[in-house]
């Protein structure tokens, strides 16, 4: 058994690594009010630059670290200049979405170049360990601690004593005022992205050495950990980020010691949700003030939605309904079925992210809840499949709303972080709650689609069922948006303060939206589970959440028809053109970036 001292040391070292990420995120948030979801990708690129240098060029450590810092900084500059600066005057959520797109693109490029297989990253340090009391400290531990402390000191000195550092702090306090006083805020942004990315890249290198392994999938985890640490310390608070990171490292380390490795991330995300609910401004912040009064809402891009006449929709639905009768194309049917299932998820998300303005990044969790509920009902209790799917919709509506309810009082980027974390918590619960979910093994032999004893498991029936359910859900959502609830949701999105002053309780109306949206997503996940016959904790993942968001933005936020068009375009087209799977995510990332930059209102317009 390892000692508590070891766990403490381990926690502090891991915390140091998190700090390198979190400090960068805090700096970036400080000057540009943006949670940079591409930060984890810079971290991965840093790790791979280090790997190439060490393994292929055999650089010594004193060269590897500056090289990684330089390359990562350069990448940060490129992201700032070409990814984010053009979005400066666009809607508030645009830069956040752009960083998600950039992250997808970068991760996928790394994956295509270096393959998804893990690589060993040798540590280049002597393998001695110093015994301290009952624990030990290795050379690498000292290096990480040293770099952590040195970065903190350098950063402090830079911010405190240099002119440029003053400019950074001035910009963080009041961007407009700084600009008016002659501070070149673009230069400040560049410097901040450079520094933050250099630190992030070094962090990737150190983590790679620490675990002697790197892979492209580390990106999202790194971003999440950094965000958790940053939120714990207070978003935008640099010293707070360091303390938050160390705290997170320790909590994880002790938690693992008590419960095991697979719980590591669960602690991080529970901590995040707890902080967001109890102290949304972080542990060290004091006052909560009303948000400034916006003259007009700036969440979604104003546009005139395209009105599609009813007969066109009817004709389109009929045309798709007779496809299986006239075409003998099983592959096409399968593809379109998949698109219909995604369209249901997109309907749910376009209501929640578009109509109510809660940009959820964890929407796939609703699929998972629906899929698992229906599969377990059918497998364990022998509930007829049709009933099980319906029940899954209801359970997802209830459970999903309950789980997300802590985020109801949050706004803007915080909602996105919270939903992302809640989504991860659901996935991790499924992984760890083995007695019910069978953990990593997953659920096998889920019975095929069946209603009233009629077998609907063949490709054509599944197609029709999915299409029928989709049309029904879309019609219901149309009706919902035309009611007083539709305008209430949109009012909350545009200005939640004014909405409350006119009697719209946020909890009540956000709950109603999640109940409706949760039902649609739950049904989608349930049908998918019976279609696939096998699901596990990775079947419904973050990539699907982001894909759903891209679909919704492509279609136009809040736009019901847009959600379906978007799903066919993004799920159907790549499949029909047989785009290889690994390029698909690249395409999604690029599409998201292009949309955010050039057509934030989407194809059909925001509603």
């Amino acid at each position, binding site marked *: 058994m390892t000692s508590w001292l070891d766990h403490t040391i381990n926690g502090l070292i891991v915390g140091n690594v998190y700090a390198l990420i979190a400090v960068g995120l805090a700096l970036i948030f400080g000057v540009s009010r943006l949670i940079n979801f591409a930060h984890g990708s810079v971290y991965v690129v840093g790790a791979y630059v280090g790997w190439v240098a060490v393994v292929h060029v055999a650089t010594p450590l004193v060269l590897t670290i500056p090289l990684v810092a330089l390359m990562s900084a350069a990448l940060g500059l490129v992201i700032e200049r070409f990814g984010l600066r053009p979005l400066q005057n666009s809607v508030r959520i645009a830069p956040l979405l752009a960083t998600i797109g950039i992250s997808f693109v970068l991760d996928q490029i790394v994956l295509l170049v270096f393959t998804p297989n893990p690589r060993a990253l040798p540590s280049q340090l002597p393998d001695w360990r110093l015994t301290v009391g009952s624990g030990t400290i290795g050379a690498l531990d000292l290096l990480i601690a040293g770099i952590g402390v040195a970065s903190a000191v350098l950063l402090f000195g830079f911010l405190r004593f240099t002119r440029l550092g003053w400019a950074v702090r001035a910009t963080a306090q009041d961007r407009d005022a700084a600009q008016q006083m002659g501070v070149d805020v673009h230069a400040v942004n560049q410097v901040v992205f450079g520094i933050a990315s250099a630190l992030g890249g070094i962090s990737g290198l150190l983590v790679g050495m620490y675990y002697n392994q790197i892979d492209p999938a580390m990106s999202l985890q790194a971003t999440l950990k950094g965000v958790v640490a940053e939120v714990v310390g207070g978003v935008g608070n640099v010293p707070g980020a360091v303390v938050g990171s160390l705290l997170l490292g320790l909590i994880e380390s002790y938690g693992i010691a008590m419960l095991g490795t697979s719980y590591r991330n669960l602690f991080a995300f529970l901590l995040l949700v707890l902080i967001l609910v109890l102290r949304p401004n972080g542990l060290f912040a004091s006052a909560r003030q009303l948000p400034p*009064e916006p003259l007009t809402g700036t969440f979604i891009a*104003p546009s005139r939605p395209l009105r599609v006449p009813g007969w066109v929709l009817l004709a389109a639905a009929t045309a798709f309904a007779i496809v299986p009768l006239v075409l003998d194309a099983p592959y096409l049917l399968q593809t379109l079925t998949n698109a219909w299932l995604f369209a249901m998820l997109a309907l749910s998300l376009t209501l929640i992210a578009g109509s109510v303005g809660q940009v959820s990044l964890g929407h796939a969790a609703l699929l998972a809840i629906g899929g698992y509920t229906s599969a377990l009902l059918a497998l364990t209790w022998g509930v007829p499949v049709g009933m099980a799917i319906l029940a899954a919709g209801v359970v997802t509506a209830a459970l999903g709303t309950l789980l997300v309810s802590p985020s109801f009082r949050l706004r803007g980027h915080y909602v996105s972080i919270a939903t992302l974390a809640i989504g991860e918590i659901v996935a991790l619960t499924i992984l760890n709650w083995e007695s019910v979910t069978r953990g990593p093994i997953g659920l096998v032999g889920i019975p095929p689609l069946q209603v009233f004893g009629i077998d609907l498991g063949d490709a054509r029936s599944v197609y029709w069922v999915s299409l029928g359910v989709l049309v029904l859900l879309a019609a219901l959502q149309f009706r919902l948006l035309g009611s007083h609830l539709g305008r209430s949701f*949109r009012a909350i999105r*545009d200005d939640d303060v004014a909405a*409350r002053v*006119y*009697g719209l309780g946020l909890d009540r109306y956000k*709950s109603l939206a999640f109940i409706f949206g949760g039902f649609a997503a739950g049904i989608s996940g349930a049908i998918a589970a019976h279609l696939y016959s096998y699901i596990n904790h990775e079947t419904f993942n973050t990539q699907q959440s982001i894909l759903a968001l891209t679909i919704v933005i492509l279609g136009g936020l809040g736009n019901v028809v847009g959600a379906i068009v978007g799903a066919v375009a993004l799920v159907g087209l790549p499949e029909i053109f047989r785009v290889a799977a690994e390029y698909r995510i690249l395409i999604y990332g690029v599409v998201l970036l292009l949309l955010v930059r050039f057509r934030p209102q989407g194809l059909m317009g*925001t509603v």
Partner: protein
Amino acid sequence: MSALLELRGLTRRFGGLTAVDGIDLDVEDGELVSIIGPNGAGKTTLFNLVTGLDAPNAGSVAFAGAPITGMTPERIAALGLARTFQLGRVFANLSVMDNVLIGAHTRLAAVRPKVPLVGPLLELALALWRPPAVKAEEAALRAEVRDILSRFGERLLPRIDQPAYSLSYANRRRVEIARALALKPRLLLLDEPTAGMNPTETAEMQALVAELKASGLTILLIEHKLDMVMRLSDRVVVMDEGRKIAEGPGAAVRSDPKVIEAYLGHGLRPVAAAAE
């Protein structure tokens, strides 16, 4: 008989700054009371405390005899208290019609049955199903919105289906007032309704407020344009640095030396000291 709105010792501190400092204020039924004072005197914070957007550190607010201190804004709205905002908070992507309909939200009855626990679910079901009673209620409210908008002449009616973001600044302020009227308030709080308006628009707004007052509506008004304040108010309250420094009929307040000092004196004192 107690006043419609009663504030007692209302206090709000932000860190070291006391934005609202022990304010006592009564507003009687049918009265128009104006609050004036230099920028940063705490007027808007006072409105936030009354409407439940902010909670006081001390003191109490009572509306129609019942305490509402610390109540949520949505509950206070349901009691019949409506407000506008200093810089304007319209729902940008909603049409003028929908903006004003939101104002009537607390009056929806058919679609929002007062049933404990399952009330919200019933509301969702009724919104989807829309039985005749719900349809009739919605139609009646829409007709009423047109009536309210017709108070603004041809300013808003022709733009009834346009999104609020496409309106001029003055029209957005008008939408805000229309939205407040749709609540059928017992007390209307207007936060600088003429801010940023030109003289013609200001005169129109003044006429509208006078008309509302004549119709018997109780109004608490924050306004910088003293001309308008003097013409409309039954009573004027002057705030400075969070405190009430004067209260009374417009003419009396206007000549109060403390008021003159509050408006002119700040910032002159250090200059005068430096000159000595």
